[in-house]
C-alpha cells in the first residue's frame, strides 16, 4: 500500500465499548478508490458495530460514541446520523430489507429522491405538492439498474419479488445516488441463489472498475477470494488479519476467524465425550421439522438427542439455530414430528411441551423469559406453580389454593445462593438486575420446574465473562447431577465446546453436521458456511 496519496477511507484506532463491554479495539484499515475490501469474522466479532460507526447510526451515539478517527479523502469526518454519511457518499445495504412493500422497484430506488415537476399549486403550497415526474423516474431507475449490471424489472412491486430481486433493488437504490463513493454490503449474498450471487459478484467488479469502493461483508469465503482485493478478518473486536486476497485461501481465513487456540479448547470436553454417546438411548427425536420464525427459518431438520447428554447447536446468525427450540416449544409456527420419551409431542402448543417436562430458557429473556416488574420469588416460582401446582397449599380438598410463600422463599433463596444471583433480596423486582443476573434468574426458573429436558437458548448473550462461566458451570452441574438432558444453542462456538458433548451445526436452516466437541475448529467453521444461503 502506498503512503504517498491519501486513501478514500482510512480508519484509525477505532475503539468502541457498550457499557464497559469492549467490542472493538484499535481497528485500523484503509481503502482506496475502486477497491473491494472483504470483511469476515464470526458473529459478535464486531463487524456490524464497525459498520454502524462508519454509517453514523444513532445507536452508536446513544451508547456513548466511539474513539478514534474516520478519514474520508484525508479529512476527518463525524457523522451524526446516517444522512450525514449518505451526503458524504457512503451507501449501505443492510441485512434486513429497507423497502416499501407496495411500491415498484423504481419507486423504491428513488424513494424520497423522486424527480418532480412544479405546478401552479406547488408554487403556492410548497414543494411537497409537486407532481412526480414518472418518466424521469423510470429513466433514472433504469440508469441505476444498468450501473448495477443485473437486470431487474423496474415496474415489479416489491412484495411480489423473489428475495434476490429485493436485494438488487436495494443495491440499485444506493447506486442511483450520484455522490456514492463507498458502498457497504452487509451479507448481500445471504439471500441469493448461487446464480444471483454470481451476478452480484460481477456487478461488484463492475462498480469497482467505475471507481466505487466496496466493503463486502460475507460468510461465504470463496466469494471474498474471488472478488476482493483485500481481506480483513476480525475476531473478538480485533482485526486479526489484513491481507491481499490473492495471498490466502479459505482454510486459512476459517482458521483466523474461529481459531482462538485450537489445541487447548477441546481438552476440557474431551474427557466427557468418551462416554460414547452413541450407545445411550435417544430421548428426543426430531423429524422433518420446519419452523416459521422470522429471520431464523428452519427447514427439514432431523435430529436425535441422547438421554443425559449436553448437545450444542451452533451456527451463524440467521441460519435457523434459534428456530429449533422455539419451534419445538411451540413459540413459533412449526411442522414435523417430535417424539420425546417415546411419546409424540404436539407442536404449536407450549403448554403440552411444559406438561411433558420440557423446559426452555429463551434467548429473549426480557420479552419471554421474565416477568420484569415482579419479584425474583415470583419469577422463579411462577411456572412451577402454574404448570405443576408446586408451591401451593390446598384447602377444602383443593378448592382453594394458596401460595406457599415460605416454600417459594426457600427455593428462591436456594437458587440465589447456588447461582450467586446478585440482588438485594429475593423480593427485588427482576428488571432491577443486571443482564447476567437476569439470565441466572431465567435458569433458576427452569431449574425450579425440575424438567427432564432443557432447551437453553443463547444463555450467555450480552453478559460478562464472570457471569458467563457461572452460567455455563451451573448448566453443566444441572446436567451431571440431576441427569437432565440439555440442548444448548449458542452463537459462540468456544462456549459450546467447553460445555457440550456433541455439537450440531446449523446452516441454511438444516443440520449441516454433528461433531464431537473435541473436533478441530476448522471443521466446525467449514460446516458453518457449508449451506449458507
Amino acid at each position, binding site marked *: 500500500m502506498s503512503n504517498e496519496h491519501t486513501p478514500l477511507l482510512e480508519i484509525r484506532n477505532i475503539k468502541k465499548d457498550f457499557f464497559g463491554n469492549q467490542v472493538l479495539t484499535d481497528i485500523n484499515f484503509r481503502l482506496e478508490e475502486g477497491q473491494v475490501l472483504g470483511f469476515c469474522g464470526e458473529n459478535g466479532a464486531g463487524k456490524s458495530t464497525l459498520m454502524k460507526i462508519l454509517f453514523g447510526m444513532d445507536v452508536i451515539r446513544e451508547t456513548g460514541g466511539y474513539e478514534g478517527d474516520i478519514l474520508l479523502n484525508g479529512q476527518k469526518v463525524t457523522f451524526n446520523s446516517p444522512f450525514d454519511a449518505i451526503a458524504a457518499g457512503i451507501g449501505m445495504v443492510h441485512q434486513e430489507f*429497507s423497502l416499501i412493500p407496495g411500491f415498484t422497484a423504481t419507486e423504491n430506488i428513488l424513494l424520497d429522491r*423522486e424527480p418532480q415537476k412544479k405546478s401552479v399549486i406547488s408554487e403556492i403550497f410548497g414543494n411537497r405538492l409537486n407532481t*412526480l415526474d414518472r418518466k424521469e423516474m423510470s429513466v433514472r431507475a433504469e440508469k441505476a439498474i444498468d450501473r448495477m449490471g*443485473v437486470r431487474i424489472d423496474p415496474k415489479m412491486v416489491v412484495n411480489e419479488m423473489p428475495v434476490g430481486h429485493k436485494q438488487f433493488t436495494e443495491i440499485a437504490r444506493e447506486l442511483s445516488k450520484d455522490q456514492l463513493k463507498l458502498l457497504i454490503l452487509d451479507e448481500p449474498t445471504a439471500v441469493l441463489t448461487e446464480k444471483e450471487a454470481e451476478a452480484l459478484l460481477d456487478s461488484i467488479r463492475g462498480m469497482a472498475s467505475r471507481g466505487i469502493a466496496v466493503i463486502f461483508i460475507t460468510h461465504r469465503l470463496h466469494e471474498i477470494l474471488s472478488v476482493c482485493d483485500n481481506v480483513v478478518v476480525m475476531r473478538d473486536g480485533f482485526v486479526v488479519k489484513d491481507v491481499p486476497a490473492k495471498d490466502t485461501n479459505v482454510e486459512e481465513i476459517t482458521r483466523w476467524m474461529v481459531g482462538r487456540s485450537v489445541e487447548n479448547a477441546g481438552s476440557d470436553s474431551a474427557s466427557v465425550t468418551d462416554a460414547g454417546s452413541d450407545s445411550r438411548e435417544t430421548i428426543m427425536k426430531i423429524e422433518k421439522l*420446519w419452523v*416459521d420464525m422470522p429471520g431464523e427459518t428452519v427447514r427439514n431438520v432431523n435430529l436425535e438427542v441422547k438421554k443425559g447428554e449436553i448437545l450444542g447447536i451452533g451456527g451463524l446468525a440467521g441460519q435457523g439455530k434459534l428456530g429449533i427450540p422455539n419451534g419445538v416449544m411451540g413459540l413459533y409456527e412449526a411442522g414435523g414430528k417430535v417424539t420425546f420419551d417415546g411419546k409424540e409431542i404436539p407442536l404449536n402448543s407450549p403448554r403440552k411441551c411444559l406438561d411433558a417436562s420440557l423446559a426452555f430458557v429463551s434467548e429473549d429473556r426480557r420479552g419471554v423469559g421474565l416477568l420484569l416488574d415482579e419479584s425474583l420469588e415470583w419469577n422463579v416460582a411462577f411456572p412451577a406453580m402454574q404448570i405443576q401446582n408446586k408451591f401451593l397449599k390446598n384447602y377444602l380438598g383443593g378448592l382453594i389454593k394458596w401460595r406457599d410463600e415460605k416454600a417459594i422463599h426457600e427455593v428462591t433463596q436456594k437458587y440465589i445462593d447456588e447461582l450467586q444471583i446478585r440482588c438485594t433480596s429475593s423480593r427485588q423486582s427482576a428488571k432491577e438486575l443486571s443482564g447476567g443476573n437476569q439470565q441466572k434468574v431465567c435458569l433458576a426458573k427452569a431449574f425450579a420446574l425440575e424438567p427432564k429436558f432443557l432447551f437453553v437458548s443463547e444463555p450467555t448473550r450480552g453478559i460478562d465473562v464472570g457471569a458467563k462461566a457461572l452460567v455455563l458451570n451451573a448448566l453443566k452441574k444441572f446436567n451431571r447431577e440431576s441427569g437432565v438432558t440439555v440442548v444448548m444453542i449458542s452463537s459462540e462456538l468456544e462456549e459450546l465446546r467447553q460445555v457440550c458433548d456433541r455439537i450440531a451445526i446449523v446452516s441454511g436452516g438444516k443440520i449441516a453436521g454433528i461433531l464431537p466437541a473435541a473436533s478441530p475448529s476448522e471443521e466446525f467453521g467449514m460446516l458453518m458456511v457449508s449451506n449458507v444461503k
Partner: protein
Amino acid sequence: MSNENATTKGNVLQTGQQKKKGNSLLNLLASNTVPIMFIIICAVCIPISGFSPAYLINEILTRMGRNTFLILALLIPIMAGMGLNFGMTLGAMAAEIGLIFVSDWQIYGIPGMVLAMIISIPISMLLGLICGKILNAAKGREMVASYIISFFINGIYQLIVLYMMGSIIPIKHTTVKLPRGYGIRNTVSLLNMRQKLDDLLAINVKGVKIPVATFIVIGLLCLFIVWFRKTKLGQDMRAVGQDMEVARDAGIDVERTRIISILMSTVIAGFGMVIYLQNMGNLSTYSSHSQIGMFAIAALLVGGASVDKASIGNVFLGVTLFHLMFIVAPSAGAKITGDSMIGEYFRVFVSYAVITIALIMYETKKRREKSQMAELLAAEQEADA
C-alpha cells in the same frame, strides 16, 4: 449471464402465481365478503319492499350527493396507513359551527354554504392538528384513539355551543339562540340553504332528479384525490402508510406527513358536512355529527375497502349499496313483520355489524397471509424430500 438469471427468477415467480390461481376465485370471494353480503341483502329486500325503480334511483342519487363527499374524506388517512379516521367527526363539528354563524348572520343559499366552509377551514385545521399530534403518540392504535378523541372534542364543542355562544361569542338571532339568552337551540333551521346546491343545475330525467352541481363538486374532489396521489406528498403518504421505518430512513418526515393527512381529512370532512346538511335542510346542533363518522366508515367498508386499502370505486359502490339497504330494509322489514320500527333498528345494527365484520376480516386476512408463509415452507420441504 444476467439475462439467464432473470428468466430463472421469472420461472420461480410463475410457479408461485400458478399456485395462487387455484384459490383465486375463493380469494376473490373471501376478500369481498362484505359487498357480496350486501348485494344479496339488497337483492332479497328490493322485491319485498315493492318500491318502483324510479323511486329507488331518485333516493340513491339524493343520498349519494349527500354522503359521498364525507366518505371521500376517509381516503387520505387510509393511504397514510392511519386506518379509518373516526376523527372525521371533528371536521363535522367545525362545519356545524360555521353553519351556526352563517344562519345567525342570515346569509342564505350558496354564498352561505361557501362562507360556512371558509369558517370551518381554520377550525378543522386546528382540530386536525391536535388529532394528528395525538395519533402520532398512539401509533398502531390510531382508530381507537381517533374514536375517543371525537368524544373528547364533542365535549368541548358542546361547551362552546351550549354556554359560550350567545354569552361570550356574539349570537344575535332568536331563531338560533335558546330562549334563556345563551346557547344554541336543539335544531337550527337551514331552510334558506336547503338543497340549494342540489337544485343548482339539476336536471330531471323521467321524474329522477339529478343534482348535477353536487356531483360536479364530488367529481372535483375525486380529481383532487387522483392528482394528490401523484404528488410528492401523496407518494410520501403511501410510503409512510406501508412502512414508517423505511420511510423515515429514506428521509421522509413521518410525523409531519401523518399530521397533514389527518388535517386534510378533517378539512374535507368539514366541507362534506356542509354539503350533507344543506341537503337535510336542518341542523341538529347536538347530534348531527355524532354518527356521521360511523355511517361514513360503514359505507366505505360495504364498498369493499379495508383498514389499509380503499379506492374511490369503493366509495361509490359502498354509498350505493349501503344506502340502498337503508331505503329498502325498513320497508321490507315492515312488510314482513308488520312493524316499521324493525327497519330503523336494523340500519343502526347493520352499521355496527359491518364495521365489526370488516375489522375481524382484516385481522384474519393478515393471519391467513402469515400461515401461508408457513404452508409454503412446509411445501418447499416436501419438494426437497
